[in-house]
C-alpha cells in the first residue's frame, strides 16, 4: 500500500490552465474545493542527481510553506495554503484574485503620463515597511524581486494589500548580513527591471530603515555587500 502511486494531482494539472512555466516550477490556475486556486508545482531537474534533486525540491516546498505561515502569523500578507502534496511537490494556494505584480504595476505606472510619482512613492514605502517587518521575524526571502510581490486590488484596507509570494528560497536567520544580502538582491533586480528608479529605491530603503529597530546593522551590511559587488565587477 505504501508504495501505491497516487496520481491525482498530476492528473488534475494536465487539465488546467498553465499560468507560468519557470525554471524551477510551473504555476497553474484552477478551482479547488470550489475556490480560485494557484497550484505551484516544482518539477525534477534532469541535470541534478535524482536523490539530491528530490531532496532539494522537497526542501523548497517545505521552506515555502513554512515561511508563508511564519509571515502570516506576524501579520504579513501571504497566500493562504490550502493543501500540499509532498509526493508531487505541489502547493495549493489561495489565488489573490485580480491581483497585479508590483513589477507590472510599476511598469504600467511609469508608462502612464499622469501623476505617477506619488503613487509609486507610497508603494515603495509600503514595500520597505513590509520587508522590515519580515526581517524582524527573521525570515529571509531569498528571491526578492518586484514579481514576487502582489498588489491585491479591492476594498480591503490598504494595510494588507501587498502580498508576498514565492518563498521557495527562503530561510530563517537573524544575521544582519543575510538581511543585507536579501535587500541587495532586491536592489539589483529592482534597478535593472525598472529604469530610472534609483530615487524610488532610496525611498524604499528609507522606509525600511524607519520601520525596523534592527535596520542600522542591516543597512551597514548592505553597504558592505554593495562595495564587494562593485569590487568584484571591477576585477572580473
Amino acid at each position: 500500500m505504501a508504495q501505491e502511486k497516487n496520481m491525482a494531482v498530476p492528473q488534475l494539472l494536465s487539465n488546467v490552465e498553465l499560468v507560468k512555466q519557470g525554471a524551477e516550477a510551473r504555476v497553474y490556475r484552477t478551482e479547488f474545493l470550489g475556490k480560485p486556486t494557484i497550484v505551484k508545482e516544482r518539477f525534477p531537474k534532469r541535470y541534478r542527481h535524482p536523490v539530491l534533486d528530490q531532496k532539494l525540491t522537497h526542501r523548497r516546498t517545505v521552506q515555502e510553506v513554512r515561511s508563508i505561515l511564519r509571515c502570516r502569523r506576524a501579520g504579513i500578507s501571504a497566500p493562504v495554503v490550502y493543501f500540499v502534496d509532498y509526493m508531487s511537490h505541489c502547493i495549493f494556494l489561495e489565488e489573490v484574485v485580480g491581483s497585479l505584480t508590483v513589477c507590472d504595476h510599476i511598469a504600467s505606472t511609469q508608462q502612464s503620463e499622469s501623476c505617477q510619482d506619488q503613487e509609486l512613492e507610497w508603494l515603495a514605502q509600503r514595500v520597505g515597511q513590509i520587508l522590515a517587518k519580515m526581517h524582524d521575524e527573521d525570515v529571509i526571502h531569498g528571491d526578492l524581486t518586484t514579481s514576487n510581490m502582489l498588489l491585491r486590488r479591492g476594498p480591503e484596507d490598504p494595510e494588507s494589500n501587498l502580498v508576498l509570494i514565492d518563498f521557495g528560497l527562503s530561510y530563517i536567520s537573524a544575521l544582519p548580513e543575510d538581511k543585507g544580502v536579501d535587500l541587495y538582491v532586491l536592489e539589483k533586480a529592482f534597478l535593472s527591471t525598472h529604469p530610472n528608479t534609483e530615487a524610488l529605491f532610496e525611498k524604499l530603503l528609507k522606509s525600511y530603515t524607519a520601520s525596523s529597530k534592527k535596520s542600522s546593522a542591516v543597512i551597514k551590511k548592505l553597504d558592505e555587500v554593495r562595495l564587494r559587488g562593485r569590487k568584484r565587477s571591477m576585477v572580473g
Partner: protein
Amino acid sequence: MHLTQELELFPDHRVTQMLFKEVKNAAGLRQSAVEGKINGALINPTMLVNPFQVLVAANKAVHLQKSGKMKTRSLYSEIIFNLSPNNNISEAFKRFGISDGDDSVMVVVVHNKDESELLADITAKVEGRQIPVEDVSSLSDSAKIKKLYKITPQEEKCGTLLDAVVCRMATKDVM
C-alpha cells in the same frame, strides 16, 4: 440543507456535510461510530469556522488514503485528525470529535455519485433538528478555536479566522 462538494482531485468522490442541533443521542451516535455502524465522521461543530474547513480536512484524508499514508485507521477518523493543528491523535478526537453530552453535531460523509440513501440513513439515526450547514458559524466557539490553533491578533489583520485555521491544518506536517 446539506452541502455537497465534489473533490476536484478525486472526481468520483464527493463530500457531504449535514448539521444538526438539539441533538439528544450524542452518546449513542458516538458509540455507533466507534463500532463502525455509522458511515460518516461525527464532528463537534463548535470547533468549526466554516464548511470549507471540513472540505480541506476531507480532501487531505482521501489523498492520504489513496497514497497509503493515513495516520489513523479509517477515512473518517483521518478527517477528524486532519482538523487538528497538531499530531496528537487522541487530543484531536477529544477536541474535534463529539462527546457524550454534546447537543450539536456535524456529520461528514464521503461518497460517490448518489448519496440520497446514505443521507437518509444518517438523518434516521440522529435525533435532532437538521439546520443549514452554512449556519455552522453560529455554533462556533471562536475564542476556543483561536486558542487551540494559536492564532495571533496580528494574523487576523491579514486574513479571516478561516484563512488562519486552514493554513494551520494544511501545513501541520512540516511545522
